[in-house]
């Protein structure tokens, strides 16, 4: 079965600093991968998704970017963090075809100070 690994679990960063969050997938190949963000007490906002190496679709224009350098690796980045970037970042993967369930990693709680 598929396992999504994310780290770190928590992160505190100053405004204007860079960000790199990594997500790796175990137990499957060629998954569709997703980055979601959840503000405190809010819903899940889709940020990026990828159906293959080097392929990124952006859902929300902002100062974040994503990359997929390998089949099982998905990276979320920012050059300069804003206060509004604070939130709970979740990586998710989907296998079993495009109609399968999303499996989430444990998430990274980011606080920008």
């Amino acid at each position: 079965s598929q396992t999504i690994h994310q780290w770190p679990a928590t992160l505190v960063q100053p405004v204007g600093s860079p960000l790199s969050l990594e997500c790796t997938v175990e137990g499957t190949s060629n998954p569709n991968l997703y980055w979601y963000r959840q503000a405190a007490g809010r819903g899940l906002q889709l940020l990026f998704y990828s159906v293959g190496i080097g392929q990124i679709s952006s859902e929300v224009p902002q100062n974040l970017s994503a990359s997929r350098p390998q089949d099982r690796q998905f990276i979320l980045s920012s050059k300069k963090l804003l206060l509004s970037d604070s939130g709970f970042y979740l990586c998710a993967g989907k296998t079993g075809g495009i109609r399968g369930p999303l499996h989430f990693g444990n998430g990274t709680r980011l606080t920008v100070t």
Partner: protein
Amino acid sequence: QQPVQSPQAVILREGEDAVINCSSSKALYSVHWYRQKHGEAPVFLMILLKGGEQKGHEKISASFNEKKQQSSLYLTASQLSYSGTYFCGTEDTGGFKTIFGAGTRLFVKA
């Protein structure tokens, strides 16, 4: 387009039933349901595909009416462990992305 969930919050006593609704303004191919405990990642409950099917998972079941673009999650004889936030996620015919509603907070008390 984000699906709309109702109600926003529900408080139940153990053993009571609840219904959570999810509706979309777009044609849907499938609906997902997830439960999230505080501070944790969402956990998959079930998927319903186009065809009006109804599924069950222990005492939790769901229906999907694609003509009305609506889905409902039914929780019967609620247990304390059912507490959490329930999200519906919808997919259109493209299927690559799942868009989530704002969530329904469910609290079950003894």
